[in-house]
């Protein structure tokens, strides 16, 4: 399992390929992934950029605990979470979660669990800058 917190733009497909390439060949039958991307609109307003603040130390620990929980709840081979922090532009990848398993149900369930748990528990906070120059903290994640 791995957790990466990155401060610059990352290529989700490259990370995903690095992850699947490192799996033992022929064991995984199923890989489910999720890519969260910054949108240029939120709650009806045009968003021109965003700052993602986090709690260094706690973030890594919380994401690792979430993967641990997934590995206990489902029969999975490996899992990856990559999360961006810092200044972000629309279209940039915010988060990538990938889970490989022998069978698809575990991969799908665990991948979704990683995202829902991350959204509920991992200490990240988004501040949006709007097209009129104002900025605001995003108050709450939507339920998935």
């Amino acid at each position, binding site marked *: 399992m791995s957790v990466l917190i990155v401060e610059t733009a990352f290529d989700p497909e490259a990370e995903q390929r690095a992850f699947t390439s490192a799996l033992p060949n022929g064991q995984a039958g199923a890989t489910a992934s999720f890519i*969260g991307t910054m949108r240029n609109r939120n709650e009806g307003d045009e968003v021109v950029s965003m700052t*993602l*603040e*986090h*709690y260094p*130390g*706690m973030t890594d*620990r*919380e994401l690792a605990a979430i993967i641990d929980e997934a590995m206990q709840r489902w029969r999975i081979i490996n899992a990856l979470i990559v*999360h961006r922090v810092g200044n972000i532009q629309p279209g940039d990848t*915010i*988060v990538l979660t990938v889970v490989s398993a022998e069978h698809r149900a575990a991969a799908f369930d665990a991948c979704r669990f990683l*995202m829902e748990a*991350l*959204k*509920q*528990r*991992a*200490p*990240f*906070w*988004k*501040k949006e800058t709007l097209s009129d120059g104002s900025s605001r*903290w*995003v*108050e*709450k*994640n939507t339920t998935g």
Partner: protein
Amino acid sequence: MMSGIPNSDNRMTIKVKFFASLREAMPQAIDEVDGSDIRTIADVWARATHDSAMPGHVLCSVNLEHCESTDSVTDGDEVAFFPPVTGG
């Protein structure tokens, strides 16, 4: 929580962090609080905010783990306060 050896006068020093909108709302930066009457996370909040009430939506952690405001603290703990998380 880490178990610390209490000072003879029960004084504790607690590292404090605020994040996101809570950090911005603080009139001045604060890194730690101390005193002999600190028992819980809520006491740390009160000490750091000049006895303001802790809003219901505020979340907290102690030593990098989520906790409740009623949880107790020990000398040397790191306590953080933050709004609902919005990652992902």
